[in-house]
Each structure stands twice: as structure tokens, then as C-alpha cells.
């Protein structure tokens, strides 16, 4: 059976048997059974020298008859049998105890078990190989010219037989055990390296403070380092032994996979650990350093221990060569002198790529937070940039960031201010990653689209650009002084850019290019590679903001309204910040567009001068009469109305003494400025007044309208609204609204009058009646809810109303229409009286107004009539 079985594969000359004599056959039979017994005892390990000699003679006899292959096959199958019975099964037995460990936690014992088992099986293998050597020897003694190829072939057959035996009986948890083992060892190694680093640092610190003698003495301190390295060496040797043993039983790739995956796992954990949630420091450097000090050093040591090719640059290879290359390396930091082998270089690239990718994924997942934290988080952005340059996975960033934008930012709950701030931070941050702006374009688009649909977007943009103190949405304007406007910041950026590396000739050219570029003419700026990047960089933020609004005219218009409101609320003529802002806007948008704003500022400057002159002239006048007021309590702002936005005029009758004061003031003006004269806008302005009650005095800052109302209560405790409206000249509906301020301050109380003449308002004479806390009352004062300047939106609304009917008619006919189509239709049909001259954005904002009034519906990008 055995004979037939094993010989079927080789060329067994059974035919020879027939030609042989009986003697020969007997000789063969005898030798064959002799071979059986001698091989058996050889493999059993209790063969004597005599038996070995017998083996040689049996082998030679059989070879003589051309049965060498029979001998080889038998010998190998005997080895296999022996290995099956002994080595393989005992080897696996070592790991039986760990079969049911959960969560791949194998504990300390596994190290012992693995090393022991491998040691054992290696010894077994060595023994079997020694047996095989005996056979080879026997075969050689017969053959005249000994061929080494015979030996090589036999050993490789034995090796593959051994490996396949182990592989076919491999328990499923063994690879996991290997993985666990390497993971543990690498962690241990990493810990050693960390401690060393700490020691180094500590020593560095110490020796810095020491004098020369101490430094000399401290050389002894290097002992510790050496000890650290020797611990490191021992560990690597242990691991190396395991790897070598694994290789020798044919588990080369399994071992490699195991330590590779352990290294990657450790690297991943290290990256996570180093990166953390701190975006204010760069971690890429320390990650690379760690790769260099832990896994690469380990691999270097391991590969050289295993005898894989490592060439040393300056140190000579020791005669002992491959056996202990570690010992041959004298430098304490052995990475420096080694010229890395190709294998190590490949490992380095693999590890770094993996680290870059891991860090990149981590940062991309948190990009939203990182950008919220920008520019403090710029180190993280810089890291991410480098990662992406390496991996080229920018599209990952775009996809992930857009989805987090949609989920977290572009929702009804987020304020327009917050969205804008995040938009600007996004531009700044991504510009660092992607100077070409390709990905920025993709990421910015959804934000821009979303913002265009919000009604307060223009206002928020202009506020953000021009007002530093105002509507900061928590995470403020990024770099620079708090309270800076974005425009201020952009300007400073530009200045600091200019001061770096450009000489004066470049200066002006560059500035000009920048100014040209900032006009956003549709044709692109001539591409001068030297200047292009700089000027374009600057344009980005402003340009992208203007892009949301639609045109710079709209932006300037909105700013003008905002400026008008600010200026009208000034009582001290202090307009330094406004002047600065207008100057900045002039640089960006051109003098001509800011002309009207400049005139408005000029009005304030003139007003201040005129005010001083009038007071000077008045002081020379006669003594004040009993009921006359001093001109000192009056100041004024005098407008060139043609250049201001439309101002809502409301009729108002002022208390006599005040009215007299105003007309005196106007007369003086006319005297000084003939032929110019003043027309008061009596409802505008600011009045600071003190009200004295029986038991209290309260200060208020209110509009003239409010002042006029409350002053009426000096003479009469209760007023019905009809009479009060008549006395103050305020239309009754307006009056009823304005009175609310005094009611909310606890100064007036609304009471039901007996007459049908509308509401009854009664003075709250003492605090005990008011039921309100005085301190609370004193707090508020100038919450002016009514605006005197028509907002751009109101103006637009007014101008657009004539088209409303037309739009409604269109939608009745066509069912639903997209924004652009409505726009084009209006352009086509409304050519006269008045012709349609609005921009797409203006139309959109008008339509979204109609939607919020529930006249229209907006669905899937189409407008339709609300049913």
C-alpha cells in the first residue's frame, strides 16, 4: 500500500523487477525492509552508528537497482508521518486553550505559549532535517558526483510538505493570535521608545543648566539610554525569533500580514491619539517622527535580524554578518547611519500614506468644527492640506463637507449671520488648502444658493463688512482685533501681503491690479502670473460675498441706507469710524459709487460747524425771556436730502418752547447761510429728557414724537387718543402705536374711556401705581422700533409692486415658472412705463416676500400661485 501509494507519482521501474534474478529480488526485498526499520529508528531518534551505516548500505543497494526515487519517497512519507503524529498536532495543542478567548484578548500567557510552541516545532523540524541530511548523505555516497540540486529539491519538498501539513490543520484563531502577539509587542516597543524620548528630553534640560564638568560627568547618564536600547534590542530579537520560526515553518506571509496589520493598527491609534480634538497645533510632524522612531526602527531591526537586506552606510558589516546585525550597530540612534534598504523605503511610504489618509479622514470628518475655529485652527488646516496633497482625495473633503453643511448650517435654525461667518471662514480656510479655488467653488455653491433665498442676507453681509461691533455671530470675524469689520481685516491682510517681498514698483502696480480686479467686471483680470495670485486671493472673499448679493450697486445701496440710519442717530457728530469705512469701500468699489455716502458724511461735518457758528451768534443776543429756552439744549443734523435715501416724514406739532427754539435756530441759519434755509424734519432726531413725577425722576432717550406725546401730559392727566392726536398732529393710528413705548415704560396706562373717542391714556403718577420695578424702567430707553429710513427692501417693494399684478397674471396663465423665466418675461414685456430694470436677485427677494405673504408658493425651484 505504502509502496504503491508513494511510488505512483515517481517513475518507478517496476518493469525492472521482471528482468531480475531471484537473488537480486531477495536482496532488494531485504534492503527494502531494512530501509523501513532503519528509517523508523532514525526518525524515532534512537538510531545507533551501526544502524546509520546499515541505512547507507540499504540505500546504496536500492539505488543500485535504480530504486532511488522509491527511497526518497519512502523517506519523505516517513518524515511526514512522524511530523503529523508529533510536531503538527502538538504544535496546535499549545493554542487549544486560547480557542475560546473572546474579543481577541489573549493575555500574557500567549507570548509564552507562542514562543514555546515555535521553539519546539523548530527543534522538531531541525531534527527531521538532520534525518533528511543523513539520507542525502547516504544518497551521495552512492552517486559518484554529488549534486547539490538533489539536496535542494529534497529539502524544498520536505519544507512544502511540512507547511501544507500545518496549513491544512491550521486552527482559525491562529492568525488572530499572531496579530495579537505583534500588537502587544509593538505597543511594548512603542512604550519603550516613548520613555526614551522623555529621558532624552529630561537629560537635555538638565545638561543645559550644567557647567562643563557636570556635563563630562553626566556622560554616565548615557548608561540609561543604552539600557533602553538594550531592552529595545532584546525585544526586537524576541520578535525576530518568532518571525524567523514562523518563516521556517512556512508562515512567512502570515507572519508578515500579522505584524503589518499590527503596525497599521498601532499607527492608526497613534494618529487618533496625537490628532485628538485639538486643532490648534500641527500633528503631522510628530506623526512622521513617530513612524520614524517606532515602526520603522522596529522594521529595520527586524529585517536586519532576519537577514533581509540592510546595508549600512558608514559602519562596516561585521564578519558575523547576518546573525546579529543589531549588535554591530554602535550608534545609539541607529536610524541615522543606516542607508535604508528598499524594503524599508517601501515600508516608510506605505506607513506614511496610511498616516496621511488616516489623519485626513479624521480632519475631514471634523472640518466643520475646524472651520468654526478658524483661524485658530489653521495648523489643522495646514496638516490637512499636506495630507490631501499626498493622497489626492480632495473629492472626499468636498462631499463630506457639503453634507455637514447641509445638515448643520443650512437650516432654518441657523442665523444668517452665523451662516455668513462660517462662509467667510470656509473661504479663508479652504483657500489655504486649495489656492486654485476649485473645491471652494463646489463647497461655496450650496451656501450661496441658500443665502440668496434669505431676506436679510444683504443686510447681514453689509453689516459684517462694515460693522465690527455689531452683529457678530459668536465666532466673530476671525483674525485681528475684535471689533474690526471684515473690510478692515481684508485691508490689513492686503497691506501685510504687500509689505512682504514686493518692492515699491510692484506696490503700486499691484494695488492697481487689485483695484481693477475688485471691480468685478465680467472679463477676467489679465493673467500676470506674478501678480495674479496675490490680487485674486484678495478678491475672493469680497467677490464671493458680492456674488451672493448680485451686484456691487446693491451692496452700496444697502450700505447707504445703513449709513443713513447710523448718521441720523448720531448726536455727537462723531463719525470717524464711518469715514474710515467709506474710505475702504471707495478703494474696493470706486469713488463714484461712494459719492452719495461721502456727501452724507460731509453733511455731518458741515452740521457740526454750522451748529457751533449758530451758537456763537446766539450768545451775543439778548437775555432769555421767562419761557424761552437756551439754544444750548439744541443741536442739529442738516441733510442734503437729494443724496440721502428717502426719509419718512411724519407730521408733528412740537411743544411751544421747543418749536420756538427750532424756528430761531432756522432763522440764524438763514442769516449765516443766505440764500440757504432750513426745513425741519420735526419727527426725526433724538431727545434726551428727564421726567419728574411725584415720587421719582426718570431719564429717557426717545424720538421727538415720543417726547411731544409725553409732554402733553404736563397739562392733562388723561387724554383720549383723538384729542391727543389733534394736539400732537400725529395721525391717530401712528399715535396709538407710539404710545406703546410709554405704556411699556410704565409711564402711561391705557384705560377705557367712557367716550367712544378711541383709547384713553392716563399718566401713572407714582411708582406705587405703576406696578413696575424702577430699575427695570431706567434701563431701557432708546429701543426705537420704528425706522425713519425706508429700507432697501421697502424701496424695492414699492418699486416692484407695479409688476406684482403682471407676475400674478403670468403665473395664472403658465401655472408655474422658474425665477429666470419670470425675469426674462418681465424684461421682454415691461419695456415702458416704467421699464423693468431689476436684477435677478432683486426679483428673487421680491418674490420671496410674496411667498412669505402667502401669495405665492415656491416648490422645486418653481414659483406658483398659492391656492
Amino acid at each position, binding site marked *: 500500500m505504502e509502496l504503491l501509494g508513494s511510488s505512483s507519482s515517481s517513475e518507478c521501474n517496476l518493469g525492472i523487477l521482471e528482468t531480475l534474478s531471484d537473488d537480486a529480488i531477495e536482496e532488494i526485498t531485504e534492503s527494502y525492509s531494512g530501509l523501513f526499520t532503519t528509517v523508523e529508528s532514525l526518525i524515532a531518534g534512537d538510531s545507533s552508528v551501526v544502524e546509520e551505516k546499515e541505512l547507507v548500505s540499504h540505500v546504496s543497494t536500492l539505488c543500485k537497482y535504480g530504486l532511488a526515487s522509491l527511497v526518497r519517497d519512502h523517506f519523505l512519507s516517513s518524515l511526514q508521518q512522524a511530523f503529523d503524529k508529533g510536531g503538527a498536532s502538538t504544535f496546535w495543542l499549545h493554542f487549544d486553550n486560547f480557542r475560546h478567548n473572546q474579543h481577541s484578548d489573549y493575555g500574557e500567557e500567549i507570548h509564552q505559549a507562542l514562543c514555546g510552541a515555535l521553539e519546539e516545532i523548530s527543534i522538531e523540524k531541525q531534527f527531521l532535517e538532520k534525518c533528511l541530511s543523513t539520507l542525502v548523505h547516504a544518497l551521495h555516497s552512492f552517486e559518484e558526483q554529488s549534486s547539490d540540486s538533489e539536496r535542494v529539491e529534497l529539502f524544498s519538498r520536505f519544507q512544502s510538505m511540512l507547511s501544507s501539513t500545518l496549513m491544512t490543520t491550521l486552527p482559525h484563531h491562529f492568525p488572530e493570535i499572531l496579530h495579537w502577539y505583534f500588537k502587544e509587542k509593538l505597543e511594548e516597543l512603542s512604550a519603550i521608545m516613548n520613555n526614551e524620548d522623555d529621558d532624552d528630553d529630561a537629560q537635555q534640560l538638565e545638561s543645559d543648566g550644567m557647567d562643563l564638568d557636570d556635563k563630562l560627568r553626566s556622560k554616565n547618564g548615557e548608561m540609561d539610554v543604552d539600557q533602553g536600547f538594550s531592552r529595545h534590542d532584546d525585544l526586537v530579537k524576541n520578535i525576530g525569533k518568532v518571525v524567523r520560526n514562523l518563516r521556517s515553518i512556512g508562515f512567512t506571509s502570515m507572519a508578515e500580514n500579522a505584524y503589518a496589520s499590527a503596525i497599521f493598527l498601532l499607527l492608526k491609534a497613534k494618529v487618533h491619539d496625537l490628532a485628538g480634538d485639538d486643532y490648534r497645533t500641527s500633528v503631522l510632524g510628530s506623526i512622521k517622527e513617530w513612524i520614524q522612531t517606532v515602526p520603522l526602527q522596529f522594521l529595520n531591526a527586524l529585517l536586519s535580524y532576519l537577514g533581509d537586506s540592510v546595508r549600512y552606510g558608514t559602519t562596516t558589516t561585521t564578519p558575523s554578518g547576518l546573525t546579529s546585525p543589531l549588535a554591530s550597530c554602535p550608534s545609539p540612534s541607529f536610524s541615522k547611519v543606516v542607508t535604508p534598504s528598499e524594503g524599508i523605503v517601501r515600508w516608510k511610504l506605505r506607513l506614511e500614506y496610511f498616516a496621511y489618509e488616516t489623519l485626513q479622514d479624521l480632519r475631514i470628518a471634523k472640518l466643520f468644527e475646524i472651520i468654526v475655529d478658524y483661524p485658530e485652527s489653521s495648523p489643522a488646516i495646514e496638516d490637512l492640506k499636506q495630507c490631501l496633497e499626498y493622497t489626492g482625495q480632495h473629492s472626499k473633503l468636498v462631499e463630506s463637507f457639503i453634507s455637514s453643511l447641509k445638515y448643520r448650517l443650512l437650516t432654518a435654525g441657523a442665523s444668517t449671520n452665523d451662516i455668513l461667518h462660517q462662509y467667510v471662514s470656509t473661504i479663508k480656510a479652504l483657500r489655504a488648502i486649495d489656492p486654485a479655488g476649485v473645491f471652494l467653488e463646489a463647497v461655496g455653491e450650496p451656501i450661496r444658493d441658500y443665502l440668496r433665498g434669505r431676506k436679510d442676507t444683504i443686510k447681514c453681509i453689509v453689516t459684517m463688512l462694515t460693522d465690527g461691533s455689531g452683529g457678530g455671530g459668536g465666532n466673530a470675524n476671525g483674525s485681528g482685533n475684535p471689533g474690526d469689520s471684515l473690510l478692515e481685516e481684508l485691508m490689513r491682510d492686503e497691506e501685510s501681503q504687500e509689505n512682504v517681498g514686493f518692492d515699491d514698483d510692484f506696490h503700486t502696480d499691484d494695488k492697481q491690479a487689485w483695484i481693477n480686479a475688485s471691480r468685478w467686471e465680467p472679463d477676467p483680470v489679465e493673467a500676470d502670473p506674478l501678480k495674479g495670485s496675490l490680487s485674486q486671493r484678495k478678491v475672493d472673499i469680497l467677490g464671493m460675498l458680492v456674488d451672493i448679493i448680485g451686484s456691487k450697486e446693491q451692496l452700496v445701496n444697502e450700505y447707504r441706507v445703513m449709513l443713513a440710519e447710523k448718521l*441720523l442717530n448720531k448726536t455727537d457728530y462723531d463719525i470717524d469710524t464711518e469715514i474710515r469705512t467709506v474710505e475702504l469701500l471707495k478703494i474696493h468699489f470706486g469713488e463714484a459709487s461712494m459719492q452719495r455716502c461721502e456727501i452724507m458724511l460731509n453733511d455731518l461735518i458741515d452740521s457740526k460747524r454750522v451748529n457751533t457758528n449758530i451758537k456763537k451768534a446766539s450768545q451775543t443776543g439778548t437775555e432769555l425771556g421767562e419761557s424761552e429756552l437756551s439754544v444750548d439744549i439744541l443741536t442739529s443734523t442738516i441733510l442734503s436730502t437729494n443724496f440721502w435715501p428717502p426719509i419718512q416724514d411724519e407730521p408733528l406739532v412740537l411743544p411751544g418752547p421747543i418749536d420756538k427754539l427750532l424756528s430761531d435756530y432756522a432763522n440764524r441759519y438763514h442769516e449765516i447761510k443766505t440764500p440757504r434755509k432750513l426745513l425741519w*424734519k420735526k419727527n426725526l432726531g433724538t431727545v434726551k429728557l428727564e421726567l419728574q413725577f411725584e415720587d421719582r425722576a426718570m431719564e429717557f432717550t426717545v424720538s421727538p414724537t415720543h*417726547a411731544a406725546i409725553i409732554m402733553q401730559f404736563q397739562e392733562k392727566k388723561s387724554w383720549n387718543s383723538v384729542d391727543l392726536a389733534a394736539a400732537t398732529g400725529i395721525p391717530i393710528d401712528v399715535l396709538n402705536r407710539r404710545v406703546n413705548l410709554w405704556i411699556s415704560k410704565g409711564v402711561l396706562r391705557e384705560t377705557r374711556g367712557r367716550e367712544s373717542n378711541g383709547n384713553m391714556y392716563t399718566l401713572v403718577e407714582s411708582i406705587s401705581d405703576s406696578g413696575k420695578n424702577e430699575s427695570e424702567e431706567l434701563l431701557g430707553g432708546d429701543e426705537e422700533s420704528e425706522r425713519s429710513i425706508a429700507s432697501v427692501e421697502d424701496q424695492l417693494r414699492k418699486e416692484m409692486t407695479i409688476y406684482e399684478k403682471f407676475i400674478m397674471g403670468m403665473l395664472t396663465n403658465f401655472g408655474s415658472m422658474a425665477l429666470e423665466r419670470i425675469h426674462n418675461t418681465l424684461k421682454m414685456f415691461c419695456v415702458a412705463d416704467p421699464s423693468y430694470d431689476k436684477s435677478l436677485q432683486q426679483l428673487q427677494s421680491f418674490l420671496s416676500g410674496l411667498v412669505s405673504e402667502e401669495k405665492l408658493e415656491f416648490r422645486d425651484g418653481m414659483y406658483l400661485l398659492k391656492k
Partner: protein
Amino acid sequence: MFLNLGFCFHKKKKCFFLDSQCYYVFTDFKKTEWHAVASWTWDAQDETCGICRMPFDGCCPDCKLPGDDCPLIWGACNHSFHLHCILKWVNSQTSQAHCPMCRREWQFKE
């Protein structure tokens, strides 16, 4: 309330409207600060300049700031123009200039 009781706590204070009257609430104007808003305009009959057709309250095409920088001037005929506009007009005439509005001989009003 205090009226019913027959006395007035304001009695000692100076009141502006009617000295003898009692006030329910008293505003001390001396402590008041009134900041008023006005617009200025040229005291002219017309609204626009007959030469440049721009509003008087604006300025002539050559000027940037309205008001003192671009004043109005009256002729003896009582027609008014931007000073800059009429000067240009007068200088452009080879012989005696006439008022662009009424064709009378142009003379600056004394």
C-alpha cells in the same frame, strides 16, 4: 392724585407753560437735550438749474459736493443758476451774455 389732595409738589419749580398751573408730570427743559434733523434748501423759485437741468439742491455737473462748494447765483432778472453754470455760460458768449431763461442782458444781482 395730588390735585385731589389740594396741593402740588411742583409749586416751587419754574414752569414754562402756565406759571400758576400744577403739572402731573414735569419736564425740566434745562436738562433736556434735543437733537433735531433738518434739510437745507436754496431759497430759490425754481427747483432746477436752467442751464444744467440739475436740481439746485444737488450740484452742477462739475462739482461733487452740494451747498457752499457749488453755490447759486441770482441775476438782475431774478433768475438763478449754479454759479459754475452761469460762469461757463457767460464765458462762452462772445459778446454780451444774456440770461438763458429770459434773454435779458445778464447781470449779477447786486
